[in-house]
């Protein structure tokens, strides 16, 4: 008999109870943060807000926002809210923009995170006896460790595959009868194609469901993955700053992701003014973590643009739902699951002796992201042989890979050949189709 919920009481709590619980936890959490996190205390003091001003979620808007740069400035321990000896784990962002963000976890925090992932697995139809193939990367990246822990909590047999080595992935999937696949959607699509190449039909693999996240994907891509793997494909969301995947997850309805509101408060704000917007508005998603001990972030700006909905869900969960991120309020790109900022590319170019005249072109071909950077040459960087130009391109690819963690294709081009709009070079051309408003809740 499959489970319906991992933690039924929490997941189906009536709204008034959720809000009461959130209020109680928020008051305590603000006190904890104010007492132990010096940079956030400074921010509160600057605004003249004291912990005693926060009586419940109705006062949340009084608190200052946190941004990624706040966290980076305090690398590595500025936001650590407990003595380090209380912590049992760190995870980290890819650090692609310079300094990494290190997230600390106490055992309580790890448990909480893994429970969130367990909820996602159960919502995708997982139960004891299932075999969970975790093909997210393991290590500092939260994808592998998060779902691994969630799978343990549900009692599934866990295959800690990590990413890559497709032959071995398929061998273990087939030989051990993996029923749930957890990885990035692009890797899921790739596995689907690889199975087909090996003559394994969708109904011949043992999978029944997949939990995919860590990069943007479309409804079309979901359909393609479901077809090629013969499964139901579920979305999962999270970020290292809020613990990792599992902050929100899809249920059988596949209509947006339920946010684990007993642990997190979600707000939608106007990215320009910071004003809190009513439910149903499109804006920037902001998270407050209510239970985290070691790395408790209040009002953390994700920069992801989405919409929240309290519309009743047939699965019985009362948690608010969020759309897939529809874009970013900054210029960050997510390419093959890696965060890329144009400013990083600029840094590499300047370091390598190029003028910052470039264009990033991202597309999705056969469900995989393509990543090209056009760079204009000048008299200094132009060599008069083909080998000198291709050699320079190779050197730039290596430098970009060192900075970004993924290797783009670099093309040196003639000066002034990059498309300009009103005199300003167009820095990013993202040809991937992201979700549109109309795909939300069947509107």
């Amino acid at each position: 008999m499959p489970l319906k919920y991992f933690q039924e009481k929490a997941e189906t709590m009536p709204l008034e109870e959720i809000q009461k619980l959130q209020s109680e936890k928020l008051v305590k959490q603000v006190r904890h943060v104010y007492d132990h996190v010096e940079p956030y205390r400074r921010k509160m003091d600057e605004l003249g807000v004291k912990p005693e001003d926060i009586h419940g979620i109705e006062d949340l808007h009084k608190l200052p926002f946190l941004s990624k740069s706040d966290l980076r400035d305090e690398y590595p321990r500025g936001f650590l809210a407990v003595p380090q000896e209380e912590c049992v784990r760190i995870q980290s962002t890819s650090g692609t923009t310079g300094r990494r963000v290190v997230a600390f976890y106490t055992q309580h925090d790890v448990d909480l995170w893994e429970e969130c992932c367990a909820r996602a697995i159960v919502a995708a139809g997982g139960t004891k006896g299932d075999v969970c193939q975790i093909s997210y990367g393991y290590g500092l990246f939260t994808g592998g460790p998060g779902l691994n822990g969630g799978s343990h909590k549900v009692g599934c047999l866990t295959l800690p595959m990590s990413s890559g080595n497709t032959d071995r992935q398929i061998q273990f999937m087939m030989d051990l009868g993996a029923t749930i696949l957890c990885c990035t959607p692009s890797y899921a699509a790739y596995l689907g194609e690889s199975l087909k190449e090996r003559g394994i039909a969708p109904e011949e693999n043992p999978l029944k469901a997949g939990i995919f996240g860590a990069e943007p994907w479309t409804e079309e891509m979901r359909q393609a993955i479901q077809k090629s793997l013969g499964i139901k494909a579920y979305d999962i969301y999270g970020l290292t700053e809020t613990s990792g995947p599992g902050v929100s997850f899809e249920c059988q309805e596949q209509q947006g992701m339920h946010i684990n509101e007993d642990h997190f408060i979600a707000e939608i704000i106007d990215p320009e003014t910071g004003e809190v917007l009513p439910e149903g508005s499109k804006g920037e998603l902001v998270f407050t973590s209510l239970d985290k001990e070691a790395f408790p972030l209040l009002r953390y700006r994700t920069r992801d643009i989405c919409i929240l909905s309290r519309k009743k869900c047939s699965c019985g969960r009362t948690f608010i739902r969020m759309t897939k991120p529809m874009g970013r309020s900054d210029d960050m790109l997510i390419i093959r699951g890696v965060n890329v900022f144009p400013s990083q590319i600029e840094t590499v170019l300047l370091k390598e002796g190029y003028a910052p005249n470039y264009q990033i072109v991202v597309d999705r071909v056969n469900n995989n992201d393509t990543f090209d950077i056009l760079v204009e040459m000048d008299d200094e960087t132009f060599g008069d042989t083909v080998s000198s130009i291709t050699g320079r391109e190779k050197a730039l690819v290596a430098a970009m890979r060192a900075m970004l963690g993924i290797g783009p294709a670099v093309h040196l081009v003639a000066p002034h050949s990059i498309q300009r709009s009103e005199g300003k070079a167009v820095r990013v051309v993202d040809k991937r189709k992201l979700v549109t408003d109309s795909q939300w809740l069947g509107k």
Partner: protein
Amino acid sequence: MALNQLSVFVDNTPGALSDIAEVLANADINLRALSIADTERFGILRMIVSDNKMAISVLKGKGYVVKETEVVGVKIGDAPGKMAEALKVLDLAEINLEYLYAFCARTDKHAYLVIRVADNQKAEEVLEAAGFHMIQDSDVAKL
């Protein structure tokens, strides 16, 4: 005084070359020789022109990247086997060619090789020792 060649980076787009030709034509610049190294995405146009200074100025003015590179200009007889003779000299001296192109002059019965090697001076020395005559920028104008 050596022979100086101009190289221009050309995007592989329709009309790219014709635009460059027009820029040079408008400045009354005569092309003595040219070659194009082409790849899938771009080309490098290499030229021996009548007036380097003027050509660089007008091309840069139009936003092109232009490089002036010293090359070896070798005068050879306009007859079968003459190029082979010159190349044999370089071969014996173990000088590797990066690229080469050639042109014939209208005025005298000679052909000219434009050669790019890692060490121009050494190439000129061995060619001169074998009796070949080198040309310079100032010679180009007279051809």
